[in-house]
């Protein structure tokens, strides 16, 4: 199991919103964590699909950013388990490099809150995560 919570520069410290980033690529996790942390999110990272639900219980995030391809358990399976678990309304954004229609449809059928394809701009990512806890959030990135 590999997860961590770190302070990232320039973010507000009072009552930050919490995001759990479930991503096994260390460098993309570093970049995303920096971007979100700088914008005031308290970022926890976790790299294993099999233990992702435990990490959600442990970190109690406001939002989850979930990669599709994870070791141990796919992002789709993790999403399905979230929707059947104790926090079915937890906002979840899925990240994938494939962006294929079938992936998007599968994620939407499982109840994803937002779907984003790589590569993305840092601002788009930040807007998307911010939008997850804003009213009237969109379902996908429109691609």
């Amino acid at each position, binding site marked *: 199991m590999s997860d961590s919570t770190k302070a990232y520069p320039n973010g507000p410290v009072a009552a930050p919103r919490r995001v759990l980033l479930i991503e096994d690529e260390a460098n*993309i996790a570093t*970049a995303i964590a920096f*971007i979100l942390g*700088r914008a005031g999110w308290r970022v926890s990272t976790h790299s294993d699909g099999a233990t992702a639900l435990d990490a959600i219980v442990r970190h109690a995030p406001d939002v989850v950013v979930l990669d599709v391809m994870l070791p141990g358990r796919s992002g789709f399976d993790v999403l399905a388990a979230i929707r059947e678990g104790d926090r079915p309304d937890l906002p979840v954004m899925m990240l994938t490099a494939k962006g294929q229609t079938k992936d998007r449809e599968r994620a939407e059928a499982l109840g994803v809150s937002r779907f984003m394809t*790589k590569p993305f*701009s*840092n*601002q788009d990512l930040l807007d998307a995560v911010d939008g997850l806890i804003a009213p009237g959030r969109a379902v996908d*990135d429109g691609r």
Partner: protein
Amino acid sequence: MATIGSIGLRIREQRLARGIRQAHLAAEVGISASYLNLIEHDRRPIGGRLLLQLAESLDLDPAGLSSGVDDDLLGRLRSAGAAQGLPPSSLATADELARRNPDWAQVIAAQSATIAAQARTIEALSDRLTHDPALAEAMHELLSTVSVVRSTASILAQTPEIDPNWLGRFHANLDADSRRLADGAEAVVGYLDRAAARGDDRLTPSEMVARFLDGHGHRFPTLEAEGPSAIPDIVSEITEPQARAMAAALLQGDAEDAARLPLDVVTATPEPDALLPLVAGEAAVVLRRLGVVDAARGLVVADASGAMIRRKPVAGFALPVIGAGCPLWPLYEALSQPGRPLVRVIEMPDGAQWVAHAVADLRQASAFGAAQGLHATMLLTRAVRSGSATPVGPGCRVCPREGCAARREPSILPA
């Protein structure tokens, strides 16, 4: 507008520092005060003899005027920033970034070029993805790495005051991911090579000719030296008979152009307007010749249907490998006005501006009453940024411009 440290601004600074009036300096070097004013505001390029004269008049080493940030690097940095949506005020600080961190400025510029190249690769391969799981997997890996590089490079470009520890970590990540990107690209190329060896690579004769021309940069020294007699030997490397015949016909045209505008003439006078009188005003000959001879220029030739029948790419101006070009290119405007030479300043999505010379000319008729072909030719020359330019793109499939009235199909690039 002059940017910090631009050559125009340096001339202006040095002139003012010496208390020399603009009109006085202009008279000394034999140009008008208004032209010097344009140079000082980077609205006209400067180099060669005039730069030497100005340096002499200002009592400076010529390198003192031109030794700021490398203009090419500056252009690539601004393009990288524009591609990431940086506002003009941030783009204007590219010079400062390049001066303070020249090595990392090179890295950012190189990564941006890599991402642009990958976008073109994606275009060429996208049609195969649906049917080829192995290629889809390789592209998935490539896109993931591009994503990391893009995010990390953006952080570095947009966070001037970054903690040294984070800076070191991101630099290390960029280094590792750029290697991974290279490995991934190599894997995809290797996969395609193996597919070609299996006979999966079904190139048409025109695609074979395009590959042959690109492999030689569209320029053949023996054709320049020996004329049409060199053609059989040059095209002998093409094994497919139809492709070989097409290439031979194309080189015959190049040889005829070369006979009318010899290499030494074109090299000494690389301006389209100056060459026109030498070929009785046949603008297409001038554009083709300059496009073939000058590696820094791009060339596109289309037939009356708009299909591109020759593409000579140039760094910074992506030409689509598959499908048509941008409908806003002057190439297509020329097709609607045969015989009228056009010149337009156009701007690509990365902010780079180009001078596009274009003309459409009727091919020679074989008989009275016979159908006559029409070809449009466009020459692309990198321009110094000016105030106004027509926004264009590389072709709809790889163009990021949103809300373009001329768009005929969605872009495959991420929004």
